């Protein structure tokens, strides 16, 4: 573990050495930064994301690294969305770990580090955050996770396809929640649907009785449940406890949500989301799935898959940039290499292609919770409106 994870904070405490020359030709190791949610109210994400990234690191290193040079992962903790912690972590990754390539997570922290990415030319790939505000903030920032607004659009289309007219939505009070609610209003208006309630709560709240009471009073046909784990589960629990039997469509659902909501309450919840499933024709996905399952005894979710995929994207960019020679280990050269060919092998199978806005557009899956398990119902075409 010590060879794989470079603890930037430990270095900051005692091992700060002279900064590498800005134009180092060949580093001893490619140190990839990661700013993840390792503590706070939602450490689940950091746990699975770091697991996915570490599996990719180990896999690439076992195959000899990138042209003989090993990869390392330097993890910083943004404490479940604390932007100040994210900025401090980004600065440590640049000055101490000297990582020109960073994987970020959560929308708020990703937006917060964007100015640094832009100024210091740090390549950033986000596999978790879904906010529209992450778009266009740094020319070196990319996303291999569908945007929240794309997922929200898919959920509203799903509601329409099921014949619902009156929509109630609930989200955390955050930049993420605000953007999803706004996007839903826009899509619903275009589709001629009515938003009858839009309630928000503090992002780490454990008491949402008031919000659910107002949802219930609005008498909707369907509830669009935008919070992430664990509040997604909490919403469903309280919605059912308040006697609401309306269908719920979420943007995210994990085992933790089922645990909080209870299996009976979770049954029938639909989820419009990115979806990772290792099919027979997907060798990369199967390799990742098997390794994850062997190491951790559970199935990987798409968050773990995205960070596994993110490491592979960075490794591929290093290879491409190195072939062209010169000072290739920097964010600008990695970005240049990406735009030369924006298609990459995807852990989801086949290729993914980054769009001009930096987002890898993926089809959206509609899953349904049944007896605590997520079952694939169908795929919907990717939409931006």
């Amino acid at each position, binding site marked *: 573990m010590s060879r794989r994870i470079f603890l930037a904070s430990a270095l900051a405490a005692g091992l700060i050495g002279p900064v590498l020359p800005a134009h180092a030709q060949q580093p001893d190791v490619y140190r990839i930064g990661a700013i993840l949610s390792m503590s706070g*109210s939602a450490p689940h994400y950091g746990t699975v994301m770091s697991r996915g990234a570490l599996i990719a690191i180990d896999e690439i290193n076992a195959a000899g690294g990138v042209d003989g040079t090993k990869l390392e992962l330097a993890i910083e903790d943004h404490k479940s969305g604390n932007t100040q912690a994210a900025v401090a972590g980004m600065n440590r990754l640049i000055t101490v770990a000297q990582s020109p390539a960073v994987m970020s997570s959560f929308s708020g922290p990703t937006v917060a580090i964007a100015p640094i990415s832009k100024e210091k030319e740090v390549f950033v790939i986000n596999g978790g955050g879904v906010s529209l505000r992450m778009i266009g903030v740094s020319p070196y920032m990319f996303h291999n996770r569908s945007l929240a607004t794309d997922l929200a659009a898919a959920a509203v289309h799903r509601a329409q396809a099921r014949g619902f007219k009156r929509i109630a939505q609930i989200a955390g*009070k955050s930049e993420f929640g605000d953007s999803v609610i706004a996007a839903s209003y826009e899509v619903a208006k275009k589709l001629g649907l009515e938003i009858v309630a839009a309630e928000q709560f503090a992002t780490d709240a*454990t008491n949402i009785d008031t919000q659910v*009471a*107002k949802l*219930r009073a609005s008498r909707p046909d369907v509830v669009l449940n935008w919070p992430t784990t664990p509040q997604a589960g909490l919403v469903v629990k309280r919605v059912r406890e*308040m006697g609401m039997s309306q269908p719920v469509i979420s943007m995210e659902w994990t085992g*933790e949500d089922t645990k909080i909501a*209870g299996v009976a309450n979770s049954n029938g919840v639909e989820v419009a989301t990115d979806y990772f499933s290792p099919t027979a024709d997907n060798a990369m996905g199967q390799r990742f799935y098997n390794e994850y399952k062997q190491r951790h005894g559970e199935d990987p979710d798409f968050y773990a898959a995205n960070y596994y995929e993110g490491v592979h994207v960075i490794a591929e960019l290093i290879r491409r940039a190195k072939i062209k020679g010169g000072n290739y280990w920097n964010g600008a050269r990695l970005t240049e290499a990406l735009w030369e060919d924006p298609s990459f092998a995807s852990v989801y199978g086949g290729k993914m292609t980054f769009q001009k806005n930096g987002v890898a557009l993926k089809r959206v899956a509609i899953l349904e919770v049944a007896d605590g398990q997520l079952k694939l119902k169908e795929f919907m075409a990717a939409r931006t409106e």
Partner: protein
Amino acid sequence: MDLILQLLANGISNGSQYALLGIGFGLIFGTTGIVHFAYGPVFAASAYVMWWLIAALGLPFPVAVVLGMAFAAGFGVLAYLVIYEPLVERGSPSFVVLVASLGLFIVIANTLAIVFGTDAKTLPDFSYGIYFLGDVVVTGVQIAQVLVFMAVALALSAFLKYGTWGSAIRAVTDNVDMARIVGIDTRKVAIVVFAIGSMISAIAAANLLVREGASTHIGFFAVFYAFIAVVVGGVGSIRGAAIGGLLLGLVESTGMWKLPTEWQSTIAFLVLFVVMLWRPTGLLRGN
């Protein structure tokens, strides 16, 4: 109309939980003058212990609650003896004790995450009823929160009014120097209030464990609402803490009748500011 009645019911239920937390915190704060921010993590730790007793050892819920209360009492007393008392005895300024309390908050919260993991701990086999009163819905836990608060508040009032230790606690709360002069062992009083206050936090933790489960960050909201309840009600007044908690729950819920719910987390501070400006010593402490 249906909505306001539902919000009123929610407010009474949530307010009872805040009031319960407030009287436990207020008992410690009002008697010892120590702003025991680690009250939150003690609350969280007792929820985890109760979960462990039920989920791992298979103990019945009432037994787990009693043991959880005993654990919380011991934990609270230990915090006083190991952290606060040495600082107070050395004449440390109150802000040093406050910083120590915040440090203890972080230590306990992080220890819980290491020991129990960071996933939510729930009681999936524990079911409770859902009741319809006209168009208003209340759960068994919401009703229990109100009844438990009333029972604890009455028991505490009787203890403070009629018990020997209760008289000593009231004397220390009123004037600690005078209490020492008349021979009251203020150290023992501090130990007793830390034990009782922490036990009360464990009862509130049992409510939350049943309702939403235990997670590492629940302690923050517990001590946050308890603190506001005590300051609004008046430091040193148990009845004030209870009224402060109930008021907070009602305003937080019914205040959202016409306002967007995104304002909810701001309401608690508005209540605090309004009361502080109107009556700086709290609702029941007089001017």
